């Protein structure tokens, strides 16, 4: 599609969507969002980019093959699940660390659950882009 307006707009929109997708993923544990939604949002950004500027540009902007991203996501999710074994817990038991915990405040929570969600994000993101790019190039 050859439209200067769409191309110019996409530059910003795609970036915004990516940032927003991270935000959606990170807030997912307490508010609507999560890895799945985040991955979908991020993918939408690149799909838009591919429509406006072509898949070649979109691939160049992504730098990494989308299928590689998906596989890495699966690996990260698995690693997050296996991590529980270090503490002798069952597979995929969430592990939590609260930095700066006080009586009233839980501090900054870090968890293997978040790592797992990042894995989900990458899987969804990579899989969709794998499909969309391949389909667009097929045309």
């Amino acid at each position, binding site marked *: 599609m050859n439209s200067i307006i769409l191309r110019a707009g996409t530059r910003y929109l795609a970036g915004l969507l990516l940032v927003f997708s991270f935000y959606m993923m990170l807030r997912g544990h307490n508010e*609507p969002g999560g890895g799945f*939604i985040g991955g*979908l949002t991020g993918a*939408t950004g690149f*799909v838009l980019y591919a429509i406006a500027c072509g898949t070649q540009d979109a691939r160049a902007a992504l730098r990494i093959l989308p299928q590689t991203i998906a596989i890495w996501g699966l690996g990260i999710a698995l690693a997050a699940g296996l991590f529980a074994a270090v503490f002798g817990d069952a597979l995929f038991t969430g592990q939590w660390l609260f930095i700066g915990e006080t009586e009233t405040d839980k501090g900054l929570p870090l968890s293997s*659950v978040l790592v797992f969600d990042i*894995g989900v994000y990458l*899987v969804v993101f990579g899989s969709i882009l794998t499909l969309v790019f*391949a389909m667009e190039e097929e045309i």
Partner: protein
Amino acid sequence: MAGGIPKDVRGNGAVGVVPILIAAALFAYFASMVPTIAAAEIIRVTIPWIPSLGIELAFLVDGLSLTFALLISGIGTLVLLYSNTYLAGHPQYARFALFLTAFMVSMLGLVLADDLILLFVFWELTTLTSYMLIGFSHESEKSRRNALQALFVTGAGGLAFLAGLILLAAVSRTTSISGLLTMGDELRAHAMYLPILILLLAGTFTKSAQVPFHFWLPNAMAAPTPVSAFLHSATMVKAGVYVMARMHPAMSGTDVWLWTLTIFGAVTAVFASLLALRQTDLKQALAYTTLMALGTLTLFLGQESGYAMTAFATFLIVHSLYKASLFLVVGCIDTATGTRETDRLAGLGRLMPITAVAAALAALSMAGFPPFLGFIGKELKYAGAIAVASEPLFVAGAALLSNALMLAVAGVVAFRPFWRGSVPSGQSPREAPWQMWAGPIILASLGALFGIYPDLLQVALINPTVISLTGEVGEAKELQLWAGFNIPLILSIATFVLGLVIYAGHVRLRALLERVFSAIPNLDRGWDRFLDGLKSVAKWQTLLVQNGKLSSYLFITFLTIAAGILLTLVYTGLPMIDVDLSDVEWKHTSIALLTIAGALLALVTNSRIAGIAALGVVGIGIALIFIVFSAPDVAITQLLVETLVVVLVAVVMLRLPSLPKAEFRLGHAILSVAVGASISLILIAVVSSPLDLRLSDYFEATSWPEAYGRNIVNVILVDFRALDTFGEIAVVVIAALSAYALLRTTRKGGRS
């Protein structure tokens, strides 16, 4: 194997030697158990396997299983030694050795298993490895066909067998075989006894090639000769016999058991002996005599008496020894002369003296001459036949006729090629190397040794085996060469006379048999037509359901969904449509109208793009419903997925031809309404029954305190049910990669 074995190739290196050593070690191991078993003891080994189902890796060594184990590992050792030379330098020998060793181990597992499920696993393994071995010469179409035939026939029997085993386990509430054997009276009186028996016998009769399922066994001779010697004479085909023998204490003694086994066994024995005489190919002739032996063994298992059981145990050993030996001899003849046709074999005795001696020893045992074990076996057969409960005259007559025919066949196979006439011109046979005559000589000599000293066998194997068969000590009859002047001896003399007469006239008899048997219907002839019919039916129904048009696939899928739901609802009673519409607000109504409008547009439009957009409207309508009923996570996902789907489908649609002009798709409309109605009905049915909120309550209560998250949906996804999510994302990756591969393949393939 024409042309003989090249002098410089003497084996296959380690690949050839290691399997021989494994088999020999197994034989030595089992041999070391003989003293224990001879003292009427039993060895059990149990390892837990699937404790939740009560299934164990349980192994049992008693007389019966030890006899089989010794035959399998002993003959296995000799056959592997033989194969290493017979197939010396074969490019796929490693594969052959692997299959043969795997078969041997499966067979050992089968006879040692003390658990019904374990027994079945090994049973199927023998079927599979046998398939590989029959089809070993996979370049030959005949070989492939026959391998597949054996697989289908024994595999179909195996399914019936599995059903029988499951029923048996359900009735007896145990999968342990030794546990089962103590419940004989209970089993025989049970209402399910007959179905169990029929299913089990369907398995054992196909595996042990009883008439009318016999046709696959002679065809299985497409395998290399050592395989025929091992699988289709000494071991695999006896698996069915083994199972019948194993179940004997628990299931025998009823009229059904008695008559079924007697009739099938007797018919198989006589029928197969006649067919054996008809053959001109040595290996085929031996194949049919194997059928005769299997029939005889089945016949005796039908009975109860100590004589019949002793006859069974003895004949089992006799047959394995002489039959494996003769098969290996045929392999030697084949290698030396390049043919197995009786008409083209003569005068080999002087050129292949050792093979000739082995053949003679084995054949004398087969024909039942004294002082060979075969003679004792035959005497016991007659004694057993006279002692049968069912119909002594019938059984003894069948035994007499089949034995006489056996004698004639022994003459045809092992006497004529060696001691009659002179070597035809064009053949230059020479003696086989020692690795190839060692097996036949050892096996045939054992037949003579046990004949002269039957006590050796009596104490070590026969008595314990009879204990396994009857469940009682002291039932076994004595094996002796001279039992006095009695009816069995008279019958033996009659056998010799009749057998020699048949042998003298066998060439003329063969022509007669040829004519008779070509008139009898034979399942083998119908086999190919049956398979072709099956294939054309499959092709027809595949084209009907999968015609390559996406729209018809979807049509069928949704039709199935709608039919499944509607039929279930009609069967269980339609839900009462009693919906309270008082709290419906204008926003609910408008969302519903929007969705319906989208669906209608999709149905009537002729533009693909408009259709996609219309579907997008439906999707957004659904997302709005989620928002209204406060499920933001689901709504966001729905919206995003809907957006992406529209983009993806639009990309694809651009390439498709445009839809036919203005045409209301009535079929599609009806289907859509049917699917919509069935889903709505089932939802109403679900909602009208009280909801089980235990899970929701649990997640609501524990989400924050235990998983530190307030978004329950996400906490379920990444914490409570993280394993499920992991499975799902793995599916997502696989789906994406598969689609990617598919798209790329079509592009490179040049198809557009």
